[in-house]
C-alpha cells in the first residue's frame, strides 16, 4: 500500500507542486524557528487557535526571489543544478551528496557555509542518514503519522514525514517544495536535505554563526541596573525579552521587510495590556513598507513615523533590554530588527525623553531629584543661550548693576554682537561634538577636553568671544548631554539655533514667540495616535505621577492612562511591605532579651 502511494507520488510529473499544506504554524521564538513564508498561492488564511501567532504576510514583504518560483523536481541533479544557478556559483554554497543508508537513495545536503553549525549538521543529520540503515528501513515502512492540529511543519511527503518523525534529530524540521521557499530557508541558515525522487526537501535549521556577546550598551550605561543589552541577532533579542517577561501573553510577531535584505522584523507586545488599535496600526504600517533593504531600525523608524518633518523623534529607541520590557509592561509596542541591537519603542511621548530606567531602580526621592536635574538641563540646553543673548542685547536692565557694568567691560573688546558670538560658539561646540565621535578612543577624551579649553581660551584672548559667552555655551552643551535620549538631544540642539536668532532680533519677545511656536508644534505631534505632549497636555493626574517627579513605586498602581491599555491596573493595591520593626535587636550586645 505504501509502495503504491510512493509510486503514485513519484510517478507524478516533474515540477508539479504537490498539494501544499497550510503554511506551518509558528512556534514561539526559539533560536532555530522556521522563517515565515510569503505564500504565493494562498492569501491570508487565519491561524489556528491556541496562541500560535501565524500571520500572513502580504506579498509585498520579503519577496526577493526573482527566480525559483517553481517547485522541486524529482530528479536530484536537476534540483541541485537549479539551486546552483539561483545562487550563482556562490563560493559559500556547499553541496554534500551522500547515499541514504538502507534506501540506496542519493541525497544531498545544501547549505551556506558560515551560517550553519557544522558539528550539529554532522551529528544530527548526516550521521543518522548515513549510518542508521536499519532504522531507516524500519522508519520507511511505517505509515506516516498524522499531524496534530497546530503542529509545526508537518511534512507531507511520506518519506520526508517518516524521516522527520524518526531520524532527523532537530527541533524544527519543515518541508519545502517550492524553490523560493527553500532558498529562503537556506539563506537564513538552514540546511536543506534533498533526496532523489522526492520533489520536496527538508529544511533543517542548524544555525551557527559568529555573534557579539550580550554586553552593556555603551551609550546607555547606568550606574545601577542590568547590563544586558540587545545584540544584532533578533533571536537572541527575543530571548532576552522572554527571560524578563515570563508571561505567555507576550506576543512576538515576525515579519520580513526589505526586498533584498529580507530582514526579520519582530513586533512585540503584551496581549492584554497593549491597546489593540495601536498594535493594529503598527502592524499595518510595517506591512506596508516596501523598500530595498533595511539595515537598521532607523530605516523603519523613518518610514513609519507620523510626522516626518518634525525635528522631534516620535519613536524611542534603545539598546537596553530592561527598558524595552518596562515599556512593554506599560502597554507599548517594541520592534526588534535583525542586524541591529537598537530596538524601537512606540508610541513615544515627549516625557519619555528625559526618563531613564535607573529612575525606577533608585529610591523615589533620589530619583525625583535627579530627574529634576535632567529636566532643568533640558530646558537649559534649549533656552539658556538665547536668554543670555536677549538679556545682553536688549534687556540689560535685568542684570544687577555691578554685574552689568563688569560684563560690559568684558565685552568691550569684542567687535561682534552677542548674536554672532553665540552662533559662532554654538557652531564650534557642535563641530567639536561631532568630531569627538569619530576620534579613536584613546585620543578622544583628551583632545575634546583640551580642544575645548584651548579654543575657548584662545578665542577669548583674541577678542572674538567674551568669557561669559564661553561659559554659557559650555553649560548649554553640557546640559544637552544630560538628556538621556540621543535623538531628542539632537533635536533640542537643532531647535536651539532658531531661538537664538529670535532672541537676537527681538529680545525676549522673540524668544517667547519662538517657544510658543515650538510648543504649538509639539502639541500637534502624535505618535501612533497618542498626543506627543501627554501627560502635560491632555493632563491626567495618574500620569503625572511619573513625569517631572517620580512617586514611590508602591503608589504607582495604574498603568499610564495615555496608552488606553487593556489592563489598567498594575497592582490592585499598594504593596509597600511594612515589616515588623521590633525585632528586639537594639540594646546592648549579649543575648537578646526575650520578646514579651
Amino acid at each position, binding site marked *: 500500500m505504501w509502495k503504491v502511494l510512493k509510486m503514485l507520488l513519484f510517478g507524478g510529473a516533474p515540477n508539479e507542486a504537490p498539494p501544499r499544506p497550510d503554511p506551518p504554524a509558528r512556534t514561539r521564538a526559539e533560536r532555530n524557528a522556521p522563517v515565515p513564508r510569503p505564500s504565493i498561492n494562498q492569501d491570508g488564511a487565519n491561524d489556528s487557535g491556541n496562541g500560535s501567532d501565524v500571520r500572513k504576510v502580504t506579498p509585498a514583504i520579503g519577496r526577493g526571489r526573482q527566480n525559483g518560483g517553481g517547485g522541486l523536481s524529482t530528479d536530484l541533479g536537476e534540483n541541485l543544478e537549479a539551486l546552483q544557478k539561483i545562487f550563482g556559483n556562490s563560493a559559500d554554497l556547499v553541496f554534500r551528496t551522500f547515499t541514504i543508508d538502507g534506501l540506496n537513495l542519493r541525497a544531498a545536503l545544501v547549505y551556506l557555509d558560515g551560517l550553519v553549525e557544522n558539528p550539529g549538521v554532522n551529528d544530527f543529520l548526516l550521521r543518522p542518514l548515513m549510518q542508521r540503515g536499519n532504522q531507516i528501513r524500519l522508519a520507511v515502512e511505517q505509515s506516516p503519522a498524522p499531524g496534530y492540529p497546530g503542529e509545526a511543519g508537518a511534512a507531507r511527503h511520506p518519506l520526508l514525514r517518516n524521516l522527520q518523525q524518526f531520524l532527523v534529530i532537530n527541533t524544527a524540521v519543515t518541508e519545502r517544495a517550492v524553490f523560493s521557499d527553500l532558498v529562503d530557508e537556506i539563506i537564513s541558515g538552514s540546511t536543506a536535505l534533498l533526496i532523489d525522487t522526492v520533489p520536496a526537501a527538508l529544511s533543517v535549521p542548524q544555525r551557527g554563526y559568529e555573534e557579539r556577546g550580550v554586553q552593556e550598551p555603551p551609550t546607555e550605561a547606568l550606574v545601577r541596573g542590568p547590563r544586558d543589552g540587545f545584540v544584532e541577532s533578533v533571536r537572541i533579542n527575543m530571548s532576552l525579552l522572554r527571560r524578563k517577561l515570563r508571561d505567555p501573553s507576550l506576543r512576538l510577531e515576525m515579519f520580513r521587510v526589505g526586498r533584498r535584505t529580507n530582514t526579520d522584523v519582530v513586533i512585540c507586545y503584551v496581549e492584554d495590556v497593549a491597546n489593540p488599535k495601536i498594535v493594529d496600526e503598527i502592524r499595518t504600517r510595517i506591512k506596508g513598507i516596501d523598500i530595498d533593504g533595511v539595515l537598521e531600525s532607523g530605516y523603519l523608524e523613518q518610514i513609519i513615523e507620523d510626522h516626518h518633518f518634525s525635528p522631534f523623534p516620535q519613536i524611542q529607541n534603545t539598546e537596553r533590554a530592561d527598558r524595552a520590557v518596562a515599556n512593554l509592561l506599560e502597554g507599548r509596542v517594541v520592534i526588534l530588527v535583525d542586524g541591529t541591537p537598537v530596538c524601537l519603542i512606540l508610541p513615544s511621548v515627549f516625557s519619555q525623553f528625559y526618563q531613564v530606567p535607573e529612575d525606577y531602580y533608585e529610591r523615589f526621592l533620589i530619583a525625583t531629584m535627579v530627574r529634576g536635574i535632567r529636566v532643568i538641563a533640558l530646558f537649559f540646553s534649549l533656552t539658556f543661550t538665547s536668554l543670555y543673548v536677549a538679556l545682553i542685547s536688549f534687556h540689560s*536692565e535685568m*542684570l544687577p548693576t555691578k554685574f552689568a557694568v563688569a560684563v560690559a567691560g568684558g565685552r568691550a573688546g569684542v567687535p561682534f554682537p552677542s548674536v554672532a558670538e553665540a552662533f559662532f560658539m554654538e557652531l564650534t561646540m557642535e563641530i567639536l561634538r561631532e568630531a569627538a565621535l569619530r576620534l579613536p578612543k584613546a585620543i578622544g577624551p583628551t583632545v575634546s577636553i583640551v580642544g575645548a579649553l584651548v579654543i575657548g581660551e584662545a578665542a577669548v584672548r583674541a577678542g572674538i568671544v567674551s568669557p561669559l559667552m564661553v561659559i554659557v555655551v559650555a553649560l548649554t552643551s553640557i546640559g544637552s548631554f544630560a538628556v538621556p535620549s540621543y535623538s531628542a538631544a539632537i533635536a533640542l540642539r537643532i531647535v536651539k539655533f532658531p531661538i537664538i536668532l529670535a532672541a537676537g532680533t*527681538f529680545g525676549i519677545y522673540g524668544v517667547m514667540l519662538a517657544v510658543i511656536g515650538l510648543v504649538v508644534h509639539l*502639541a500637534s505631534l502624535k505618535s501612533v495616535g497618542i498626543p506627543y505632549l501627554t501627560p502635560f497636555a491632555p493632563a491626567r493626574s495618574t500620569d503625572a505621577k511619573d513625569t517631572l517627579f517620580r512617586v514611590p513605586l508602591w503608589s504607582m498602581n495604574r498603568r499610564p492612562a495615555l496608552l488606553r491599555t487593556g489592563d489598567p491596573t498594575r497592582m490592585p493595591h499598594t504593596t509597600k511591605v511594612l515589616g515588623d520593626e521590633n525585632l528586639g535587636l537594639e540594646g546592648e550586645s549579649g543575648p537578646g532579651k526575650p520578646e514579651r
Partner: protein
Amino acid sequence: MLALPRLIVEQAGTGGPLATLLGAIPVTLAWLAATKLSRWFPGRSPVEYAPKVLTRPVGWLYSGALLVMKILITALAVREFGAVVRTAVLPSTPVEVTIILLLLTTAYFVRYDQQVFARVFEIFFPIMLAPLTTICLLALKNAHAYYLFPLLGTSGLGLLRGAVLATTGYVAYMVALFLLPSLNRPEKAVKAGLVGIGLSTFVYMLAVSATLAVFGLEETKLLVWPTFELIKNTTVPGFILERLEPAFLGIWVAAVFTTVAATYYATLLNIAQMFKLRDHKVMAIPLVPILYIIAMAPPDVHTLYQAGITWGLFGVTMNVGGPVFMTGIARLRRKGATRSAAPTQ
C-alpha cells in the same frame, strides 16, 4: 487686562474690586443661558442655531454681529499688546513688526484643529497663572490696606459703570460658546464654564485689588497700564534679577497669544459656519491682513482705549444679551430640545 484696573477704577473708585466681581454676574448668566441653548440644540454652535431661534435673517445678522465683534476684539487685543511691547520693552521696533509677528504666529497655530488647541492651552495655563498670582502677592508687600477702602466706592452709579466695564473684560470668554458643540461630555460644560469664569474673576480681582492697594486711587488713575507698573514696583527678594519687566512681558506674550488665538479661532469657526466652508483653516491667512489693518487703525493709545470700550460694550450686549435673549425666545417659540431636528454632526 493690563489696562483694566485703571478703566474700572476710573469709574468705580475704590469699589473697583467689587465692580470686577459684579461684572462677572452677567457673564455667568450668559454662560448658563448658552449652555442651555446648546443642550437644546446639541452639536450646534450659536451660528447654527441662531437662525432657527431668531428667524433666518435676524439670526444671520446676529452671527454677523458676532463675527464683527470677534474680529474687532482680536485686532484690538493685538494692538494693545503691540503698544505695550513698544512702549515698555522694545522702543525702537516698529509696532507693525510686533503685531505682524504675533499675527503670523497665531495664524500658524489656528490652522490646527481643536485638539491641538486644547493641549496648547493646557500647557500655557499654569505658565500664565502662576506668575501673575505670584507677582500680585509679592507686590502686596508695598500695599496699604486703607487704599482699598471704602469698599463700595463713593458712588453707586460709578460702581455700576465699573461693573459694566469689567464685563467687557470677560467678554472674550464667550469664545467658549463655539467649543460647546464638540464637547465629549456636555453635561460637564456648565460646571467647567463656571470654574473658568470663577478663575478669571479671581485673577482680575486680584489684579485690581493689588494695583489699588499699592498705588492708591489717584495714582492708579494716572497709570496707563497699572498692572505693568505693579511689576516695576515688585522686587524679588535677593535682587538676583532686578527689573522684572522683560520677564513679565515674556509671560504676557503667552497670555496675549492664547487670547488672540482663541478669538481668532472662534472667528474662523464663525466664518466657516456662516458660509458653510469646508473647514476653518481656509480663511486663516486671508484674515491676517484684515486684522492687521484694523489693529493699526487707532492712531494712538487713547483712541485705542476709547474704541476698546465702545466695542467692548457692543460685545457685551451681543455676547451677554444674546444668549439670554435667545433662551427666552427659544422657549417662547418652542424650538430646540426634543423637537428639533436630529443633530447632523
